[in-house]
């Protein structure tokens, strides 16, 4: 097909308007920034981790990016919440893309920075 797919679906729009787990977390165990301002895509993730169980009890984000970036960040924080660190680490951009529904061509370029950010956070702890 030669026609470009449309960049957005209603799920992305809804999460862009009402993102979950938005904002800085002052009591975060770890935070990590991924992406690059030059690509217009940058995310900070904050994770609060329970010492004993190594489970993520809270996750939040800040974003500089397009609506898809904001929506997928919101989804990713929901996905990793409650997970053990090692399991959260396994979250791939493909899983996130699947969760958000059909996303646009190029909207999650190669590797979603949010996953990198969670991975970085996990690695720091592990």
């Amino acid at each position: 097909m030669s026609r470009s797919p449309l960049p957005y679906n209603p799920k992305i729009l809804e999460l862009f308007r009402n993102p979950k787990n938005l904002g800085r977390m002052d009591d975060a165990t770890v935070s990590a920034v991924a992406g690059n301002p030059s690509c217009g895509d940058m995310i900070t993730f904050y994770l609060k981790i329970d010492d004993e169980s190594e489970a993520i009890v809270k996750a939040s984000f800040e974003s500089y990016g397009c609506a898809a970036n904001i929506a997928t960040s919101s989804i990713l924080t929901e996905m990793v919440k409650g997970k053990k660190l090692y399991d959260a680490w396994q979250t791939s951009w493909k899983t996130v893309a699947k969760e958000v529904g059909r996303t646009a061509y190029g909207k999650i370029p190669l590797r979603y920075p949010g996953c990198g950010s969670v991975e970085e956070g996990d690695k720091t702890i592990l």
Partner: protein
Amino acid sequence: MVEGVRELIKAHEGVEREVYLDFENSAPVPEEVVREMLPYFNVKAYGNPTLTNKPGWEAYETIISSAKKIARYVGAKSLEEINFLPGETEANNLAILGTVYKRKGQGNKIIISEIEPLSIIHVCKMLEKSGFRVEKIPVDGEGFINLEWLKEKVDNNSIMVSVSSVNNEIGTIQPIREALDIVKSKKSEIIFHTDISDAYGRIDFDLSRIPVDLATISSYKILGPRGIGALYVREDVKIERILEGQIGTQKLWPGIENTPLIVGFSKASELAFENFEQNINHMRRLRDKLIDGILNSISGTLLNGPSGGKRSPDNVNISFLKCEGESLTIELSLKGVYVSSGSACTRRALQPSHVLTAIGRRFEEAHGSILMKVTRYHTDEDVDYVLKAIPAAVDRLRKIYGSMGG
């Protein structure tokens, strides 16, 4: 997928006001232009202008009268110099390729500015693959071409130079007369092309005073219908056709002319020019009200392009730091304010606007840019509404940006 789009559209229900400012990318056609076009679809002049029957002769008469009108507004000597074609992209392709085909073997250098529209840049990139050398005139921080550079680089090996009269993204009014003089004094055979799509009807520009060889004109940029434009080719200039097919009333672009669209283009020109001074004064006032209103009320903002008389009267292009442009277009759309952005996210190439990076904007400044154009139809109430919507939109997105881990 279509279902999804319907929901996106539905999300806009109940907006307080709608202000369309994305005139760079498309335009609503004014009622008076539509009214003028309508009879030409099925009441009169619906024939083929080259054929020997009444509707055909009516079409011929209509096309010639429209060409005559546009020739007069643009400062052409003769209506024969106006070649109708589907739009700016086609006109720019014809200008570049048509010249290159004609001038085969006479040199291989093409000079364009680094902020030309993609219909110039991409066709030149294609020519580079077949052995042409393309040199790009650098621009300064406001988008003005470097005339000294041009003087140095234009040589006997150059076949053509192409510089837009007004930049479509940042509104810079180029010193075309000076550029033309530099090129022609070096070698008069070098073809000089200028895209006047953003100059026509917005600045005092007359081809009889600035005798370029080729000029591109777009209809929708002056509120005419989409799908029509023209390439001005000065009487004594020869270029080749780039498409083949049945020839209508004009030799450079095959196919049967689209009479209703030509009528719309001509009517839109008439409306833009009949109260020219009044129209551009109105636009300039609203432009400055928008620019000043935004720069004075929002911190971390940058005006892209020059200000005052050196800027096109309709163009507003501002970068909002810590605010990504595509998100901003969506946030504003949900408030009924329709704009576009130079952000990478709005482009298939995932690179920010080449115009903004050429004037020295850092990537994150280019990503946060918003482009708006005002017309004679906009009101103070429209601008007041936009000036209320933008700070709220920027504020929400900057909250999402937060401290960015800092």
